[in-house]
């Protein structure tokens, strides 16, 4: 009996350690697969221009998704990020356009715009966090509500149309998106920095361990003297900060915000997190997986643009299929069955 138990334990141990390996590698393997597919379809895929396009585009969703990794790991969810990005972009543009009259179209104007963005991001995150923890309302409902609120606010600010950044300011601000350091585009550098900071915070600090604990079992975490409400609220603040960083590099790209800015970004961010191996129900998160997930999502769109083999009407179907296959591969259940 005892030997049987031990035997079973050892089996589950080996298979689970095997799974963890595979889980960590899964998203990377899927990405490599996509890159091979892309190159096979069109050799322009591997050109440095195209690769730089992919990574730069992935930066928006990627930075937001790093924040979402914290929220989801701690058992929460934030549906408001897309609307929040649109609202913060709109507010930044309005503030900077107003400042042009007094400060002129200089670096100060842009810096104040950036500061406004960061403050709004932190405030918006704090609202989501505090209302859901102190108000004891499910995060799904709170952020569904704020999603509608931010979306309406940006439509209202833009009078239903589009907010456009002053052309003088655009010139000053432009390098934040279009510039590069040693050939690497600025948005990619910011993305990388955010990912490293996120990795350190989630995997090497007490705060990160508390996120894991709360996501696994909130009651047990509470009994273990973790300030659950404070930690959860902080995850939303981190999310808000990430949204504001993404916004800061988004605004100089087209210099405009409208009610169609950031539509469905929340779902893309959540998808990136889950493709990367984080559990939607919380308790386990992986920042590098999220980064790869975000790059994968952009790569799929890019590959579809590089070929005319697939009907345009089926783009959504192909994307959906690849996402499901990618997650299926890294869950690894199919491997365990085979070994039995």
């Amino acid at each position: 009996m005892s030997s049987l138990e031990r035997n079973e334990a050892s089996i589950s141990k080996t298979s689970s350690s095997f799974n963890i390996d595979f889980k960590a590698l899964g998203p990377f393997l899927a990405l490599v697969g996509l890159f091979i597919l892309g190159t096979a379809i069109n050799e322009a895929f591997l050109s440095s221009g195209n690769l730089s396009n992919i990574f730069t585009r992935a930066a928006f969703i990627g930075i937001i998704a790093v924040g979402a990794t914290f929220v989801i790991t701690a058992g929460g969810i934030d549906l408001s990020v897309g609307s929040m990005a649109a609202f913060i972009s709109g507010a930044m543009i309005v503030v900077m356009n107003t400042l042009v009259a007094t400060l002129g179209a200089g670096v100060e104007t842009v810096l104040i715009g950036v500061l406004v963005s960061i403050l709004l991001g932190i405030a918006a995150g704090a609202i989501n966090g505090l209302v859901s923890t102190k108000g004891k309302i499910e995060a799904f409902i709170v952020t569904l509500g704020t999603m509608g609120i931010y979306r309406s606010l940006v439509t209202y600010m833009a009078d239903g149309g589009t907010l456009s950044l002053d052309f003088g300011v655009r010139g000053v601000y432009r390098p934040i998106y279009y510039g590069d350091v040693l050939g690497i585009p600025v948005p990619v550098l910011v993305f990388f920095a955010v990912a490293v900071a996120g990795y350190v915070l989630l995997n090497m600090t007490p705060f990160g361990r508390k996120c894991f604990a709360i996501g696994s079992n909130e009651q047990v975490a509470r009994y273990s003297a973790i300030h659950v409400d404070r930690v959860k609220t902080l995850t939303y603040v981190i999310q808000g900060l990430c949204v504001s960083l993404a916004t800061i590099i988004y605004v100089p790209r087209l210099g405009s915000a409208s009610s169609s800015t950031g539509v469905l970004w929340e779902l893309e961010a959540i998808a990136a997190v889950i493709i990367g191996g984080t559990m939607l129900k919380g308790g386990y998160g992986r920042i590098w997986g999220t980064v790869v997930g975000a790059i994968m999502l952009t790569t799929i769109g890019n590959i579809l643009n590089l070929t005319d083999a697939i009907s345009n009407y089926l783009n959504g179907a192909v994307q959906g299929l690849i996402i499901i296959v990618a997650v299926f591969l890294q869950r690894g259940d199919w491997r365990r069955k085979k070994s039995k």
Partner: protein
Amino acid sequence: MKTFTKYLGAACVLGLGLVSTTAFAADKIKIGVSIPAATHGWAGGLNWHAAQAEKRIEATYPNIDIIVVSANGASEQANDLEDLVSVQNIDALVVLPFESDPLTVPVQQVKQAGKFVTVVDRGLSLPGIEDVYVAGNNPELGRVSGEYIRDRLNDSGKIVVLRGIPTTVDTERVDAFVETLDGSKIEILDMKHANWNRDDGYEVMQDFLSRFPEIDAVWAQDDDIALGVIEAIKQADRTDEMFIVGGAGMKDIIKRVMDGDALTPIDVLYPPAMIATAIDITVMKFTSNAPVEGRYILGATVVTKENAKNFYFPDSPF
């Protein structure tokens, strides 16, 4: 929550309606205007022009009351139509249907209640319901754009096309465009959907640029897409190589045409101001003896450097 705010809004409108009917003459002619909410640039222009028309007409004709309501979807718009008839007791309806099929029966019911009906832009699925039909001309927009590109390129060259959201509007434009180019030596390298959206326009164009070393012209068919395309071409530093033909008449693009930007030599109109045309025609039904029933198809006017100032509305949000 959305429904709640809507009822709240309806209650407020009802309250105001009661106040105004008691305060002023009770025999005011009421014209209901039902349009999609300002969820993208073109619809924003639509809402702005509807509000402008309301102000202008109510100032000119004190006995006419225009009620503008906007909806976020087809079913919400169907509810709006019911409210306009039962609560507001309108005399005439001007409607830009969110989608043709789901709104055909609701509009038909308004007609059966004895109201004068004007349909704008998206036609209904059954014939004979509306008294007046006002629309832009989607095939014409495609044809005019195709002709310009063909003439400008002297009948040969390589172009890319950015399509809108997959709908009838998009299909009609693209079919007419492709037909116009048939028989010429112009090669359409590829067509992709950019969903009438700036961000999508930017990304699709980036990919076209890395894929095709030679592009002579871009048909963006929409000014939001065109703005994204402009940034992508600038980033790739290929501004001298090609030109862009947009569509709709957004002020930013009209301004570029007016300033003689080589990248955007022309724009083809598909003006959201058509809602004002429809409201004006409907008002004429009640203010003059002139016959107004019929179909009005607006031309797809080509905006050039010379005439651009006639189509430039700096105050419009679109």
